[in-house]
């Protein structure tokens, strides 16, 4: 079914989209990276292509154009679409080597403020799979005990459903009550000051450099609150950073 849906989606793109892609690739190889970026962007805006390879190509074009911040932004976007897209990961690593600090992204747990669920290691999907597995074990154990007509391991046959119930409860709670993961943002300017409050009259707490990746947890008007590696946080102007948002790219 998935293959059928993908095939239908692919075949539904007009021939014009193929032409635009060819023009973009030609412009890229001709060194006209601005035109290549414009054409790639058309694929996204006009034809709704939101694939990791497209963002990867845009990252390469920005990189060749000399805009390191936007290149990193689009590589991150490619990875946001497909976290296992290795070409984007490799080019991202190469681009990060050229940033001032190669700043790591802080862990999501540094931003999320839930209690227990913050430390719960299993994702909802893993929790559901684990529940199925424990129930399967319980069924097997019951079958063995029934056919062999033994009363041994009775405690285990009672414990396994309880474990399954706990796993299932946590999976449901994690699925419905946990916050979505914090979004990443990439610094686009050479130097971006980060302030203690939403006022540029303050003296900056620290500076972000082009290509630095941060997590954001709040958006207020023209400001966003950023968290950087090392635990520092503060407010930066939105126009200095680009948010890596799959839906909003």
């Amino acid at each position, binding site marked *: 079914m998935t293959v059928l849906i993908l095939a239908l989606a692919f075949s539904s793109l007009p021939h014009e989209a193929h032409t635009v892609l060819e023009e973009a690739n030609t412009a890229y190889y001709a*060194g006209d990276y601005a035109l290549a970026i414009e054409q790639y962007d058309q694929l996204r805006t006009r034809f709704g*292509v939101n694939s990791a390879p*497209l963002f990867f190509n845009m990252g390469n074009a920005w990189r060749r154009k000399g805009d390191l911040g936007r290149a990193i932004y689009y590589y991150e976007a490619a990875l946001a679409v497909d976290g296992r897209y290795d070409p984007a990961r490799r080019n991202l690593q190469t681009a990060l080597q050229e940033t001032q600090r190669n700043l790591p992204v802080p862990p999501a747990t540094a931003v999320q403020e839930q209690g227990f669920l913050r430390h719960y290691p299993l994702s909802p999907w893993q929790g559901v799979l684990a529940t*199925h597995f424990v*129930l399967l074990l319980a*069924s097997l154990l019951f079958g063995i005990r029934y056919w062999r007509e033994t009363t041994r391991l009775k405690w285990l046959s009672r414990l396994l*459903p309880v474990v399954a119930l706990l796993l299932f409860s946590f999976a449901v709670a994690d699925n419905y009550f946990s916050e979505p993961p914090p979004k990443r943002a990439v610094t686009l300017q050479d130097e971006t000051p980060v302030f203690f409050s939403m006022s540029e009259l303050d003296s900056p707490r620290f500076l972000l450099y082009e290509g630095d990746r941060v997590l954001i947890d709040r958006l207020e008007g023209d400001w966003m609150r950023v968290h950087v590696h090392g635990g520092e946080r503060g407010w930066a102007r939105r126009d200095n950073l680009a948010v890596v948002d799959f839906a909003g790219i």
Partner: protein
Amino acid sequence: MRCGTLIIICAAFVAAVAQAQGPVSMDVSARRVSMNEVFHISITANGSEISEPDMQDVIDAGIRLDTPSHRSSTSIQTIGGETAVTQSRTWRYPASISQEGMVTIPRISVTVDGQEYFTQPKEIEVTRTVDMGARPPDDTAELTIEDLAFIRAATDKRVVYNGEPLLLRLRLYVLDQFYVSLETPRRMPMPETHGFQTGQQWQESYSEMYAGRRYRVTELSQVLYPTTSGDLTVGAWEWQGGVRWFNSRRQPQTAARVFETNPVQITVLPLPTPRPSGFSGAVGRFDVDARLNAEHLTQGAPVRFNITISGEGNPNAISAPSLPEMPWAHFSDPEVETQQQQNSTEVQKHFSYLLTPLRAGLQEIPPVQFLYFSPESKEYVTAYGPAIPVEIQPASDSDTFVAIGGSAEEQRRRIEVYDDGLLPIITDPQVVFSVSTRPGRRLGFLTMFSPVVTLALLIATVFTLKHRRRLLRDTGYARRYYAKSTCIKRLDAATAAEDPTDSLYRALTGFIGDMLNINEAGLTSSEVEAVLSEAQVPEALRSVVVRSLKACERARYAGRGTSKEEATALCSAVRDAVEQLHELLREKQS
């Protein structure tokens, strides 16, 4: 009377002397020094306004002075409302004398509070030799302090071309006898080298005979590259150190000394003009080597092409050699690495290119050329690397690099992505237009609650198997479980039987026997009534059951056949009674 007069005269003389010397005094750190040994002259003055001491007479006396250290203190006293400020200043001059004999330090003039005062002159004995420790009887030669430790500075060339390497050697000699040691500055100062670019520096230690005595020699070597033509000077090597030795009484002796060499004059010749094109400024002697790091080349597969330029010269002046025209290959920008040989002016500079073959077949990398100026032959020389023949295998997958078509220039552009480690763009429309399904963090309802289905199946299986086992093992349960269905079948069969009353009787008693787990054989209506009464069956239902059984008994014992209507009515009554009994007894049993 005469004695009193003498005392008064002496007191007046002392007072006059004291008035002349006043608040100014001088002291020396040693009264007996060796030639060129550093000692200190300290001058102290007290007063409100104190001028600098006039040391010209001391210098005129042949005493060499160095920059003094200076110390001052101020005291403020208030007596009877009047405040007096008193200053005390001390100058400490390092001094040395280069002539043997008794030397008098003349009086030194200092102006205090507008009046000139003089220090007392002092005499110092300057000896040429130093008193050394136990010496062998045949060693009677005199040793001066300069014999204990001295320095030398020299260069390997006095005339060089601009950019030609020059080796400056600074040697420090310390006598390898009498436990002579030398205290040097923590960071050894180097001579001024204006007009030179400094290169590698290294240090060696060895032993050497000099003037019949063995010395420990520490040699500092500094490579210099002239950056401008003309007469240049390597400045004097000058620093202060302390010489230590043991005298004949085995007492440790220390003498401060200023070590100094003469400046070295260097003539720098300009390079001949006109300079050939491709000359990068390298001056010296160089060789070129070129190697491929792979024997078998494949079309489109990059390999390393390494060029090494080695020789004597300024590594900063060695630029990347010009690569010959090779349309069959693409070269990346080189990675450059410089290696300086330890304790030598030899240098190696490596240029590593990424070579990507664009065409298959037999090809050749022509000799790499490097142009430099040779001071030995006084002309510009071109060094050649070896020519490298290569055989390039065609690529197995022709759609990666080389099957693009177009000119070699376009092919170069296609593969330039390897220059900076950037992976190439994706051109395949099927890949670019693929629909990326980002897995959401939240699961759908069906996925989320799928374990409930599994759990329900598990519970159903457990109950089914347990029920099945009970049916096999619990006879009463099994009879009760099947009682109604068995009875209904028997009732259905009874209506079609020849003697329906007998079948109805047996069906009803059988049902009651199964439900109450008793033997139904031979049950009479009165026994059934007793059993139902014991099972607390209500009176009304009990009487219906008993009446039905008695009706069947009467029909059976009367010896006449039962009409079909009677049999149907009886069957219907029994069926109702069975239904009610089943409900009732099932409740009671559960």
